Protein backbone atom coordinates (compact mmCIF):
# COMPACT_ATOMS: atom_id res chain seq x y z
CA UNK A 1 0.00 0.00 0.00
CA UNK A 2 1.45 3.37 -0.99
CA UNK A 3 1.70 6.20 1.45
CA UNK A 4 1.56 9.94 0.98
CA UNK A 5 3.21 10.42 4.34
CA UNK A 6 6.93 10.20 4.67
CA UNK A 7 7.16 11.72 8.13
CA UNK A 8 10.71 10.61 8.67
CA UNK A 9 9.63 7.04 9.00
CA UNK A 10 12.33 6.07 6.57
CA UNK A 11 10.48 5.32 3.35
CA UNK A 12 12.86 7.51 1.38
CA UNK A 13 15.91 6.32 3.23
CA UNK A 14 18.12 3.53 2.05
CA UNK A 15 17.75 0.27 3.90
CA UNK A 16 20.11 0.37 6.79
CA UNK A 17 22.75 -2.30 7.06
CA UNK A 18 22.48 -4.01 10.43
CA UNK A 19 25.62 -4.53 12.44
CA UNK A 20 27.20 -8.00 12.28
CA UNK A 21 24.87 -10.16 14.43
CA UNK A 22 26.17 -10.98 17.92
CA UNK A 23 29.47 -9.20 17.21
CA UNK A 24 29.25 -7.34 20.53
CA UNK A 25 28.63 -10.43 22.61
CA UNK A 26 31.03 -11.23 25.42
CA UNK A 27 31.43 -14.31 27.57
CA UNK A 28 28.53 -14.07 30.01
CA UNK A 29 27.66 -15.50 33.40
CA UNK A 30 24.07 -16.76 33.16
CA UNK A 31 22.07 -14.99 35.85
CA UNK A 32 19.84 -18.01 36.38
CA UNK A 33 22.38 -20.85 36.69
CA UNK A 34 25.61 -18.87 37.23
CA UNK A 35 27.50 -20.82 34.54
CA UNK A 36 29.98 -18.87 32.42
CA UNK A 37 28.91 -19.20 28.78
CA UNK A 38 31.45 -18.35 26.06
CA UNK A 39 30.38 -15.70 23.54
CA UNK A 40 30.72 -18.05 20.57
CA UNK A 41 28.34 -20.52 22.11
CA UNK A 42 25.82 -17.78 22.96
CA UNK A 43 25.89 -16.57 19.37
CA UNK A 44 25.04 -20.07 18.17
CA UNK A 45 22.22 -20.56 20.71
CA UNK A 46 20.65 -17.10 20.08
CA UNK A 47 21.67 -16.14 23.62
CA UNK A 48 19.74 -18.95 25.21
CA UNK A 49 21.77 -20.47 28.03
CA UNK A 50 22.83 -23.98 26.88
CA UNK A 51 22.99 -25.09 30.53
CA UNK A 52 19.59 -24.01 31.88
CA UNK A 53 17.62 -22.66 28.91
CA UNK A 54 17.39 -19.11 30.27
CA UNK A 55 16.52 -16.67 27.47
CA UNK A 56 18.94 -13.79 28.01
CA UNK A 57 18.14 -10.19 27.01
CA UNK A 58 19.26 -9.44 23.44
CA UNK A 59 20.47 -6.32 21.68
CA UNK A 60 17.66 -5.07 19.40
CA UNK A 61 19.84 -5.30 16.29
CA UNK A 62 20.73 -8.91 17.08
CA UNK A 63 17.06 -9.70 17.59
CA UNK A 64 16.17 -8.05 14.31
CA UNK A 65 18.76 -10.05 12.40
CA UNK A 66 17.36 -13.28 13.83
CA UNK A 67 13.82 -12.32 12.79
CA UNK A 68 13.72 -10.40 9.52
CA UNK A 69 14.68 -11.32 5.97
CA UNK A 70 18.25 -10.34 5.27
CA UNK A 71 18.58 -6.78 3.99
CA UNK A 72 14.89 -6.00 4.48
CA UNK A 73 15.11 -3.80 7.58
CA UNK A 74 14.68 -0.02 7.39
CA UNK A 75 15.01 1.75 10.70
CA UNK A 76 12.58 4.53 11.71
CA UNK A 77 13.31 7.69 13.69
CA UNK A 78 16.81 6.57 14.58
CA UNK A 79 17.86 10.08 15.55
CA UNK A 80 15.18 10.66 18.18
CA UNK A 81 16.86 11.53 21.47
CA UNK A 82 15.47 12.27 24.88
CA UNK A 83 15.21 15.73 26.37
CA UNK A 84 15.30 16.31 30.10
CA UNK A 85 11.65 17.18 30.75
CA UNK A 86 11.84 17.58 34.52
CA UNK A 87 15.41 18.96 34.43
CA UNK A 88 16.78 16.18 36.57
CA UNK A 89 20.45 16.48 37.44
CA UNK A 90 22.49 13.60 36.10
CA UNK A 91 19.90 12.30 33.61
CA UNK A 92 21.76 13.56 30.53
CA UNK A 93 24.94 11.84 31.71
CA UNK A 94 23.05 8.58 32.31
CA UNK A 95 21.65 8.76 28.79
CA UNK A 96 25.06 9.43 27.28
CA UNK A 97 26.48 6.48 29.15
CA UNK A 98 23.67 4.17 28.00
CA UNK A 99 24.12 5.36 24.42
CA UNK A 100 27.82 4.71 24.53
CA UNK A 101 27.34 1.23 25.92
CA UNK A 102 24.51 0.16 23.60
CA UNK A 103 25.19 2.01 20.36
CA UNK A 104 21.52 3.04 20.16
CA UNK A 105 19.87 6.36 21.07
CA UNK A 106 17.19 5.03 23.40
CA UNK A 107 15.59 1.84 24.67
CA UNK A 108 13.76 0.85 21.49
CA UNK A 109 14.64 0.27 17.83
CA UNK A 110 11.73 0.54 15.37
CA UNK A 111 11.47 -0.05 11.66
CA UNK A 112 10.01 -1.86 8.72
CA UNK A 113 11.11 -5.31 7.64
CA UNK A 114 9.81 -8.56 6.30
CA UNK A 115 9.62 -12.17 7.44
CA UNK A 116 9.48 -14.70 4.61
CA UNK A 117 8.60 -11.87 2.27
CA UNK A 118 5.71 -10.49 4.35
CA UNK A 119 6.13 -6.91 5.50
CA UNK A 120 5.64 -5.89 9.12
CA UNK A 121 6.46 -2.97 11.38
CA UNK A 122 8.82 -3.83 14.23
CA UNK A 123 9.59 -2.32 17.61
CA UNK A 124 12.29 -4.07 19.61
CA UNK A 125 13.07 -2.91 23.13
CA UNK A 126 16.46 -3.07 24.80
CA UNK A 127 16.65 -3.98 28.45
CA UNK A 128 20.31 -2.96 28.46
CA UNK A 129 19.38 0.68 27.82
CA UNK A 130 18.43 2.09 31.26
CA UNK A 131 16.50 -1.07 32.05
CA UNK A 132 14.38 -0.76 28.94
CA UNK A 133 12.49 2.03 30.66
CA UNK A 134 9.83 3.93 28.73
CA UNK A 135 10.31 7.67 28.52
CA UNK A 136 9.29 10.16 25.84
CA UNK A 137 11.46 8.62 23.12
CA UNK A 138 10.29 5.04 23.66
CA UNK A 139 6.69 6.25 23.85
CA UNK A 140 7.02 8.30 20.68
CA UNK A 141 8.81 5.59 18.68
CA UNK A 142 6.37 2.85 19.70
CA UNK A 143 3.48 5.19 18.87
CA UNK A 144 4.93 6.03 15.46
CA UNK A 145 5.54 2.36 14.74
CA UNK A 146 1.92 1.54 15.56
CA UNK A 147 0.68 4.47 13.47
CA UNK A 148 2.87 3.36 10.58
CA UNK A 149 1.25 -0.07 10.79
CA UNK A 150 -2.24 1.47 10.75
CA UNK A 151 -1.31 3.75 7.88
CA UNK A 152 0.38 1.16 5.70
CA UNK A 153 -1.82 -1.77 6.58
CA UNK A 154 1.13 -3.73 7.96
CA UNK A 155 0.95 -5.88 11.07
CA UNK A 156 2.89 -4.52 14.04
CA UNK A 157 5.28 -6.74 16.00
CA UNK A 158 6.56 -5.36 19.32
CA UNK A 159 9.19 -7.24 21.30
CA UNK A 160 9.08 -5.94 24.87
CA UNK A 161 11.78 -5.82 27.56
CA UNK A 162 11.36 -3.19 30.23
CA UNK A 163 11.57 -2.41 33.89
CA UNK A 164 8.70 0.05 33.47
CA UNK A 165 8.29 3.79 33.16
CA UNK A 166 11.42 5.96 33.09
CA UNK A 167 11.20 7.70 36.43
CA UNK A 168 13.81 10.28 35.39
CA UNK A 169 11.16 11.80 33.10
CA UNK A 170 8.58 12.08 35.88
CA UNK A 171 4.95 12.45 34.83
CA UNK A 172 5.98 12.49 31.14
CA UNK A 173 6.96 8.84 31.38
CA UNK A 174 3.61 7.90 32.96
CA UNK A 175 1.79 9.57 30.09
CA UNK A 176 3.61 7.43 27.51
CA UNK A 177 1.46 4.55 28.75
CA UNK A 178 -1.65 6.42 27.64
CA UNK A 179 -0.02 7.51 24.41
CA UNK A 180 1.08 4.05 23.25
CA UNK A 181 -2.22 2.48 24.30
CA UNK A 182 -4.28 5.08 22.49
CA UNK A 183 -2.23 4.38 19.37
CA UNK A 184 -3.04 0.68 19.78
CA UNK A 185 -6.73 1.61 19.65
CA UNK A 186 -6.12 2.79 16.09
CA UNK A 187 -5.07 -0.67 15.04
CA UNK A 188 -8.44 -2.00 16.18
CA UNK A 189 -10.11 0.69 14.12
CA UNK A 190 -7.99 -0.21 11.08
CA UNK A 191 -8.25 -3.98 11.56
CA UNK A 192 -4.48 -4.35 11.73
CA UNK A 193 -3.00 -7.01 14.03
CA UNK A 194 -0.68 -6.23 16.91
CA UNK A 195 1.60 -9.09 17.89
CA UNK A 196 3.43 -8.79 21.18
CA UNK A 197 6.50 -10.81 22.13
CA UNK A 198 7.10 -10.54 25.87
CA UNK A 199 10.73 -11.12 26.78
CA UNK A 200 12.61 -11.10 30.04
CA UNK A 201 11.79 -8.93 31.87
CA UNK A 202 8.61 -6.99 31.01
CA UNK A 203 7.23 -5.16 34.02
CA UNK A 204 5.67 -1.94 35.29
CA UNK A 205 4.30 0.68 32.95
CA UNK A 206 5.05 -1.27 29.78
CA UNK A 207 3.06 -4.25 31.08
CA UNK A 208 0.23 -1.90 32.03
CA UNK A 209 0.09 -0.48 28.50
CA UNK A 210 0.89 -1.72 24.98
CA UNK A 211 2.56 -4.97 26.09
CA UNK A 212 -0.82 -6.32 27.25
CA UNK A 213 -2.74 -5.12 24.21
CA UNK A 214 -1.64 -7.69 21.64
CA UNK A 215 -4.12 -9.56 19.49
CA UNK A 216 -1.71 -12.41 20.04
CA UNK A 217 0.65 -12.43 23.01
CA UNK A 218 3.74 -14.59 22.79
CA UNK A 219 6.19 -14.96 25.66
CA UNK A 220 9.71 -16.34 25.76
CA UNK A 221 10.22 -19.24 28.19
CA UNK A 222 10.92 -18.15 31.74
CA UNK A 223 10.42 -14.44 31.02
CA UNK A 224 9.39 -12.40 34.06
CA UNK A 225 6.15 -10.63 33.15
CA UNK A 226 4.16 -8.58 35.63
CA UNK A 227 3.10 -5.16 36.84
CA UNK A 228 4.50 -4.76 40.34
CA UNK A 229 8.08 -5.73 41.11
CA UNK A 230 8.63 -8.88 43.13
CA UNK A 231 10.37 -7.03 45.95
CA UNK A 232 7.47 -4.59 46.23
CA UNK A 233 4.96 -7.46 46.40
CA UNK A 234 7.03 -9.29 48.99
CA UNK A 235 7.10 -6.04 50.98
CA UNK A 236 3.28 -5.82 50.85
CA UNK A 237 2.74 -9.48 51.73
CA UNK A 238 5.65 -9.83 54.12
CA UNK A 239 6.28 -13.27 52.65
CA UNK A 240 8.25 -14.94 49.86
CA UNK A 241 6.56 -15.38 46.49
CA UNK A 242 5.95 -18.88 45.08
CA UNK A 243 8.44 -20.21 42.53
CA UNK A 244 7.51 -19.42 38.96
CA UNK A 245 5.38 -16.42 39.99
CA UNK A 246 5.03 -13.87 37.14
CA UNK A 247 6.98 -16.09 34.75
CA UNK A 248 5.85 -16.67 31.14
CA UNK A 249 4.39 -20.10 31.95
CA UNK A 250 2.47 -18.65 34.93
CA UNK A 251 1.06 -15.91 32.70
CA UNK A 252 -0.07 -18.52 30.19
CA UNK A 253 -1.78 -20.49 32.99
CA UNK A 254 -3.44 -17.30 34.21
CA UNK A 255 -4.72 -16.56 30.71
CA UNK A 256 -2.65 -13.49 29.83
CA UNK A 257 -0.30 -15.08 27.28
CA UNK A 258 -1.40 -17.10 24.24
CA UNK A 259 1.73 -19.19 23.99
CA UNK A 260 5.24 -19.61 25.25
CA UNK A 261 7.62 -19.90 22.32
CA UNK A 262 11.31 -20.79 22.56
CA UNK A 263 13.56 -18.30 20.80
CA UNK A 264 14.61 -20.70 18.06
CA UNK A 265 10.95 -21.03 16.97
CA UNK A 266 10.01 -17.37 17.24
CA UNK A 267 10.66 -16.45 13.62
CA UNK A 268 8.61 -19.38 12.40
CA UNK A 269 5.70 -18.53 14.74
CA UNK A 270 5.68 -14.88 13.66
CA UNK A 271 5.87 -15.94 10.03
CA UNK A 272 2.81 -18.16 10.54
CA UNK A 273 0.94 -15.28 12.21
CA UNK A 274 1.80 -12.91 9.36
CA UNK A 275 0.64 -15.51 6.86
CA UNK A 276 -2.68 -16.18 8.62
CA UNK A 277 -3.37 -12.46 9.04
CA UNK A 278 -2.33 -11.48 5.51
CA UNK A 279 -4.86 -9.57 3.44
CA UNK A 280 -5.19 -12.38 0.90
CA UNK A 281 -6.15 -14.75 3.71
CA UNK A 282 -8.89 -12.54 5.12
CA UNK A 283 -12.50 -12.78 4.00
CA UNK A 284 -13.40 -16.47 4.14
CA UNK A 285 -16.81 -15.60 2.71
CA UNK A 286 -15.42 -14.84 -0.74
CA UNK A 287 -14.04 -18.31 -1.36
Amino acid at each position, binding site marked *: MGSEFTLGLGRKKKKSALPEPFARLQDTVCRECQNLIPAAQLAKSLQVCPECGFHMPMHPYDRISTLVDEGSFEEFSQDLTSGNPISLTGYKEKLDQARGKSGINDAVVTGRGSIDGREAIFGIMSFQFLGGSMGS*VVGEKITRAILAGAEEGSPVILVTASGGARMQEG*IFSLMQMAKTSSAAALL*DEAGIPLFIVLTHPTTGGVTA*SFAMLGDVAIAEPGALIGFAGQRVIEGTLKQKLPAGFQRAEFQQDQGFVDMVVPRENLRHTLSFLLQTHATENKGWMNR
Partner: protein
Amino acid sequence: MDESVISNTIEEIKLLAEKENIDISRELDDLKTKYASSKGDTWEKVQLARRIDRPNTLDYINLICDDFIELHGDRHYGDDPAMIGGIGTVDGMSVTFIGHQRGHNLKENIARNYGWAYPEGYRKALRLAKQAEKFNRPVVTFIDTAGAYPGLESEERGIGEAIAVNLKAFSVLRVPILCFVIGEGGSGGALGIGVGDKIYMLENSIYSVISPEGFASILLRDPQRAQEAADLMKVTAQDVKEFGIIHDIIPEAPGGAHTDPSFTATKIKERIITDLKRLASRNPGQLIRYRSKKIREIGHFNENNEQAQDLFKIFTKAFSRS
Protein backbone atom coordinates in the same frame (compact mmCIF):
# COMPACT_ATOMS: atom_id res chain seq x y z
CA MET B 1 15.72 18.99 65.18
CA ASP B 2 16.89 16.41 62.70
CA GLU B 3 14.26 15.63 60.04
CA SER B 4 14.41 11.90 60.40
CA VAL B 5 13.94 12.21 64.18
CA ILE B 6 10.63 13.98 63.68
CA SER B 7 9.34 11.57 61.04
CA ASN B 8 10.52 8.59 63.09
CA THR B 9 8.73 9.95 66.15
CA ILE B 10 5.53 10.35 64.14
CA GLU B 11 5.89 6.75 62.97
CA GLU B 12 6.41 5.56 66.56
CA ILE B 13 3.28 7.34 67.77
CA LYS B 14 1.37 5.77 64.90
CA LEU B 15 2.55 2.25 65.76
CA LEU B 16 1.80 2.76 69.44
CA ALA B 17 -1.73 3.96 68.67
CA GLU B 18 -2.30 0.99 66.37
CA LYS B 19 -1.14 -1.35 69.10
CA GLU B 20 -3.49 0.26 71.60
CA ASN B 21 -6.22 0.23 68.95
CA ILE B 22 -6.75 4.00 69.02
CA ASP B 23 -7.49 5.73 65.75
CA ILE B 24 -5.49 8.96 65.76
CA SER B 25 -5.03 9.21 61.97
CA ARG B 26 -6.52 12.70 61.90
CA GLU B 27 -4.34 14.05 64.69
CA LEU B 28 -1.32 12.52 63.00
CA ASP B 29 -2.23 14.24 59.74
CA ASP B 30 -2.38 17.57 61.56
CA LEU B 31 1.12 16.93 62.90
CA LYS B 32 2.37 15.90 59.46
CA THR B 33 0.80 18.91 57.76
CA LYS B 34 2.26 21.26 60.34
CA TYR B 35 5.67 19.67 59.97
CA ALA B 36 5.43 19.64 56.19
CA SER B 37 4.50 23.32 55.95
CA SER B 38 7.79 24.12 57.63
CA LYS B 39 9.53 22.04 54.96
CA GLY B 40 8.25 23.97 51.96
CA ASP B 41 5.51 23.92 49.40
CA THR B 42 5.89 20.57 47.70
CA TRP B 43 6.01 18.40 50.78
CA GLU B 44 3.15 20.30 52.35
CA LYS B 45 1.06 19.55 49.28
CA VAL B 46 2.02 15.87 49.43
CA GLN B 47 0.81 15.74 53.05
CA LEU B 48 -2.36 17.70 52.24
CA ALA B 49 -3.10 15.38 49.32
CA ARG B 50 -2.82 12.37 51.62
CA ARG B 51 -4.78 13.65 54.63
CA ILE B 52 -7.25 11.15 55.96
CA ASP B 53 -9.92 13.83 56.33
CA ARG B 54 -9.42 15.09 52.79
CA PRO B 55 -12.71 14.82 50.87
CA ASN B 56 -12.85 11.56 48.94
CA THR B 57 -14.73 10.41 45.85
CA LEU B 58 -18.04 9.66 47.57
CA ASP B 59 -17.89 12.97 49.47
CA TYR B 60 -17.62 14.89 46.20
CA ILE B 61 -20.28 12.78 44.49
CA ASN B 62 -22.70 13.47 47.34
CA LEU B 63 -21.93 17.19 47.29
CA ILE B 64 -22.14 17.50 43.49
CA CYS B 65 -25.07 15.24 42.59
CA ASP B 66 -28.74 15.90 43.16
CA ASP B 67 -29.13 12.14 43.25
CA PHE B 68 -26.75 9.22 42.92
CA ILE B 69 -26.99 5.43 42.79
CA GLU B 70 -23.93 3.27 43.18
CA LEU B 71 -23.44 0.33 40.81
CA HIS B 72 -21.32 -2.62 41.84
CA GLY B 73 -19.17 -5.30 40.30
CA ASP B 74 -17.11 -6.04 37.21
CA ARG B 75 -19.32 -8.96 36.06
CA HIS B 76 -16.25 -11.22 35.94
CA TYR B 77 -14.76 -11.62 39.36
CA GLY B 78 -16.31 -9.43 42.03
CA ASP B 79 -16.80 -5.96 43.43
CA ASP B 80 -13.81 -3.85 44.42
CA PRO B 81 -14.59 -1.41 47.26
CA ALA B 82 -11.44 0.59 46.39
CA MET B 83 -13.02 1.67 43.09
CA ILE B 84 -16.58 2.92 43.09
CA GLY B 85 -18.96 4.05 40.40
CA GLY B 86 -22.52 4.81 39.54
CA ILE B 87 -24.98 7.18 37.93
CA GLY B 88 -25.75 10.64 39.24
CA THR B 89 -27.62 13.72 38.16
CA VAL B 90 -25.82 17.05 37.96
CA ASP B 91 -27.89 20.10 37.15
CA GLY B 92 -30.40 17.86 35.39
CA MET B 93 -27.80 15.91 33.38
CA SER B 94 -27.19 12.18 33.85
CA VAL B 95 -23.50 11.52 34.46
CA THR B 96 -21.53 8.33 35.15
CA PHE B 97 -19.11 8.78 38.05
CA ILE B 98 -16.09 6.54 38.63
CA GLY B 99 -13.41 6.97 41.27
CA HIS B 100 -10.91 5.49 43.67
CA GLN B 101 -12.40 5.34 47.14
CA ARG B 102 -10.38 5.93 50.30
CA GLY B 103 -11.64 5.96 53.89
CA HIS B 104 -11.72 8.66 56.56
CA ASN B 105 -10.49 6.42 59.36
CA LEU B 106 -8.54 3.22 59.86
CA LYS B 107 -11.59 0.98 59.69
CA GLU B 108 -12.88 2.54 56.49
CA ASN B 109 -9.44 2.47 54.99
CA ILE B 110 -9.07 -1.23 55.67
CA ALA B 111 -12.48 -1.85 54.08
CA ARG B 112 -11.48 0.30 51.09
CA ASN B 113 -7.95 -1.13 50.88
CA TYR B 114 -6.68 2.48 51.18
CA GLY B 115 -7.86 3.14 47.63
CA TRP B 116 -5.48 0.58 46.15
CA ALA B 117 -7.68 -1.07 43.52
CA TYR B 118 -7.47 -4.63 42.22
CA PRO B 119 -7.96 -5.63 38.56
CA GLU B 120 -11.69 -6.05 39.18
CA GLY B 121 -11.80 -2.38 40.21
CA TYR B 122 -10.39 -1.31 36.85
CA ARG B 123 -12.71 -3.74 35.05
CA LYS B 124 -15.69 -2.33 36.93
CA ALA B 125 -14.57 1.15 35.83
CA LEU B 126 -14.42 -0.08 32.23
CA ARG B 127 -17.84 -1.71 32.45
CA LEU B 128 -19.38 1.51 33.72
CA ALA B 129 -17.60 3.59 31.08
CA LYS B 130 -18.90 1.28 28.34
CA GLN B 131 -22.36 1.46 29.86
CA ALA B 132 -22.13 5.25 29.78
CA GLU B 133 -21.07 5.08 26.13
CA LYS B 134 -24.05 2.92 25.25
CA PHE B 135 -26.46 5.43 26.75
CA ASN B 136 -24.57 8.48 25.51
CA ARG B 137 -23.84 9.62 29.05
CA PRO B 138 -20.71 11.59 29.94
CA VAL B 139 -18.15 10.17 32.38
CA VAL B 140 -16.48 11.95 35.31
CA THR B 141 -13.61 10.25 37.12
CA PHE B 142 -12.05 11.08 40.49
CA ILE B 143 -8.44 9.96 40.86
CA ASP B 144 -7.25 9.33 44.40
CA THR B 145 -4.80 6.47 44.81
CA ALA B 146 -1.19 5.83 45.62
CA GLY B 147 -1.30 3.10 42.99
CA ALA B 148 -2.89 -0.15 41.90
CA TYR B 149 -2.62 -2.84 44.57
CA PRO B 150 0.81 -4.48 44.35
CA GLY B 151 -0.10 -7.96 45.58
CA LEU B 152 -0.14 -11.58 44.59
CA GLU B 153 -3.81 -11.80 43.62
CA SER B 154 -3.62 -8.51 41.79
CA GLU B 155 -0.94 -10.02 39.55
CA GLU B 156 -2.75 -13.34 39.20
CA ARG B 157 -5.83 -11.56 37.92
CA GLY B 158 -3.82 -9.36 35.54
CA ILE B 159 -3.57 -5.86 36.98
CA GLY B 160 -1.31 -4.83 34.08
CA GLU B 161 -3.80 -6.04 31.50
CA ALA B 162 -6.72 -4.41 33.32
CA ILE B 163 -5.03 -0.98 33.31
CA ALA B 164 -3.79 -1.34 29.73
CA VAL B 165 -7.25 -2.16 28.42
CA ASN B 166 -8.67 0.88 30.20
CA LEU B 167 -6.06 3.19 28.69
CA LYS B 168 -6.96 1.95 25.24
CA ALA B 169 -10.73 1.90 25.75
CA PHE B 170 -10.96 5.31 27.45
CA SER B 171 -8.91 6.89 24.66
CA VAL B 172 -11.61 5.99 22.12
CA LEU B 173 -14.74 6.17 24.27
CA ARG B 174 -17.43 7.93 22.27
CA VAL B 175 -18.70 10.15 25.13
CA PRO B 176 -16.98 13.02 26.98
CA ILE B 177 -14.67 12.07 29.88
CA LEU B 178 -13.61 14.57 32.55
CA CYS B 179 -10.91 13.51 35.01
CA PHE B 180 -10.16 15.15 38.35
CA VAL B 181 -7.11 14.27 40.45
CA ILE B 182 -8.56 14.96 43.90
CA GLY B 183 -5.78 13.67 46.17
CA GLU B 184 -2.83 11.50 45.31
CA GLY B 185 -2.49 10.46 41.67
CA GLY B 186 0.04 7.66 41.79
CA SER B 187 1.39 5.72 38.84
CA GLY B 188 -0.52 3.45 36.45
CA GLY B 189 -3.18 2.92 39.08
CA ALA B 190 -4.14 6.59 38.76
CA LEU B 191 -3.87 6.68 34.98
CA GLY B 192 -6.12 3.60 34.71
CA ILE B 193 -9.10 5.96 35.08
CA GLY B 194 -7.19 9.06 33.97
CA VAL B 195 -7.53 9.21 30.19
CA GLY B 196 -10.08 11.84 29.19
CA ASP B 197 -10.94 14.98 27.26
CA LYS B 198 -10.15 17.31 30.15
CA ILE B 199 -7.78 16.53 33.00
CA TYR B 200 -7.87 18.65 36.15
CA MET B 201 -5.99 18.61 39.43
CA LEU B 202 -7.16 20.08 42.70
CA GLU B 203 -4.89 22.81 44.04
CA ASN B 204 -3.25 20.56 46.64
CA SER B 205 -3.26 17.28 44.76
CA ILE B 206 -0.23 15.52 43.33
CA TYR B 207 0.30 13.40 40.22
CA SER B 208 3.36 11.28 39.67
CA VAL B 209 4.81 8.23 37.96
CA ILE B 210 5.87 6.72 41.29
CA SER B 211 5.44 7.81 44.91
CA PRO B 212 8.09 10.22 46.26
CA GLU B 213 9.10 7.40 48.64
CA GLY B 214 9.55 4.99 45.73
CA PHE B 215 11.54 7.53 43.72
CA ALA B 216 13.71 8.22 46.76
CA SER B 217 14.49 4.57 47.42
CA ILE B 218 15.18 3.71 43.77
CA LEU B 219 16.86 6.78 42.31
CA LEU B 220 18.23 8.46 45.45
CA ARG B 221 18.88 5.09 47.12
CA ASP B 222 17.39 6.34 50.39
CA PRO B 223 13.65 6.17 51.24
CA GLN B 224 14.19 8.89 53.87
CA ARG B 225 14.77 11.42 51.09
CA ALA B 226 11.12 11.44 49.95
CA GLN B 227 10.77 15.20 50.48
CA GLU B 228 13.70 15.89 48.22
CA ALA B 229 12.29 13.37 45.73
CA ALA B 230 8.92 15.14 45.66
CA ASP B 231 10.70 18.38 44.74
CA LEU B 232 12.83 16.72 42.06
CA MET B 233 9.88 14.89 40.50
CA LYS B 234 7.72 18.04 40.20
CA VAL B 235 4.48 16.43 41.33
CA THR B 236 2.29 19.41 42.26
CA ALA B 237 -0.74 20.57 40.29
CA GLN B 238 1.19 23.73 39.46
CA ASP B 239 4.14 21.71 38.05
CA VAL B 240 1.97 19.37 36.03
CA LYS B 241 -0.03 22.29 34.61
CA GLU B 242 3.21 23.96 33.58
CA PHE B 243 4.13 20.76 31.70
CA GLY B 244 0.90 21.12 29.73
CA ILE B 245 -0.34 17.72 30.85
CA ILE B 246 -3.46 18.95 32.65
CA HIS B 247 -5.92 21.59 31.52
CA ASP B 248 -6.46 23.51 34.72
CA ILE B 249 -6.20 23.62 38.50
CA ILE B 250 -9.34 23.56 40.66
CA PRO B 251 -8.98 25.86 43.69
CA GLU B 252 -9.42 24.60 47.25
CA ALA B 253 -10.44 26.50 50.36
CA PRO B 254 -7.54 28.15 52.25
CA GLY B 255 -5.74 25.52 54.32
CA GLY B 256 -6.81 22.72 52.01
CA ALA B 257 -9.94 20.97 50.75
CA HIS B 258 -10.61 19.34 54.12
CA THR B 259 -11.33 22.69 55.73
CA ASP B 260 -14.33 23.30 53.47
CA PRO B 261 -15.27 20.36 51.20
CA SER B 262 -18.29 22.10 49.67
CA PHE B 263 -16.08 24.95 48.42
CA THR B 264 -14.10 22.59 46.17
CA ALA B 265 -17.18 20.53 45.31
CA THR B 266 -18.87 23.66 43.97
CA LYS B 267 -15.83 24.48 41.85
CA ILE B 268 -15.77 20.94 40.44
CA LYS B 269 -19.50 21.05 39.75
CA GLU B 270 -19.21 24.35 37.88
CA ARG B 271 -16.44 22.88 35.79
CA ILE B 272 -18.43 19.75 34.98
CA ILE B 273 -21.41 21.82 33.87
CA THR B 274 -19.48 24.23 31.66
CA ASP B 275 -17.31 21.50 30.14
CA LEU B 276 -20.18 19.20 29.32
CA LYS B 277 -22.06 22.06 27.68
CA ARG B 278 -19.00 22.88 25.60
CA LEU B 279 -18.17 19.28 24.69
CA ALA B 280 -21.78 18.61 23.68
CA SER B 281 -21.05 20.34 20.37
CA ARG B 282 -18.46 17.71 19.43
CA ASN B 283 -19.59 14.54 17.73
CA PRO B 284 -17.94 11.29 18.89
CA GLY B 285 -15.38 11.34 16.08
CA GLN B 286 -14.30 14.88 16.97
CA LEU B 287 -14.15 14.04 20.67
CA ILE B 288 -11.84 11.10 20.02
CA ARG B 289 -9.66 13.05 17.60
CA TYR B 290 -9.07 15.90 20.04
CA ARG B 291 -8.51 13.50 22.93
CA SER B 292 -6.04 11.40 20.95
CA LYS B 293 -4.21 14.44 19.66
CA LYS B 294 -3.74 15.78 23.16
CA ILE B 295 -2.40 12.44 24.43
CA ARG B 296 -0.21 12.05 21.37
CA GLU B 297 1.48 15.41 21.93
CA ILE B 298 2.84 14.53 25.38
CA GLY B 299 6.54 13.90 25.21
CA HIS B 300 9.83 15.71 25.36
CA PHE B 301 12.45 14.75 22.80
CA ASN B 302 14.81 16.09 20.17
CA GLU B 303 14.79 15.21 16.54
CA ASN B 304 16.93 16.30 13.64
CA ASN B 305 14.53 15.14 11.01
CA GLU B 306 12.18 18.03 10.25
CA GLN B 307 9.77 15.84 8.30
CA ALA B 308 8.70 13.82 11.27
CA GLN B 309 6.83 16.45 13.20
CA ASP B 310 3.20 15.50 13.44
CA LEU B 311 1.25 12.39 12.64
CA PHE B 312 -2.00 14.02 13.64
CA LYS B 313 -3.20 13.58 10.05
CA ILE B 314 -3.13 9.84 10.54
CA PHE B 315 -5.33 10.14 13.58
CA THR B 316 -7.68 12.41 11.68
CA LYS B 317 -7.88 9.98 8.79
CA ALA B 318 -8.32 6.89 10.92
CA PHE B 319 -11.24 8.37 12.77
CA SER B 320 -12.95 10.10 9.87
CA ARG B 321 -15.37 7.16 9.83
CA SER B 322 -16.30 7.54 13.47
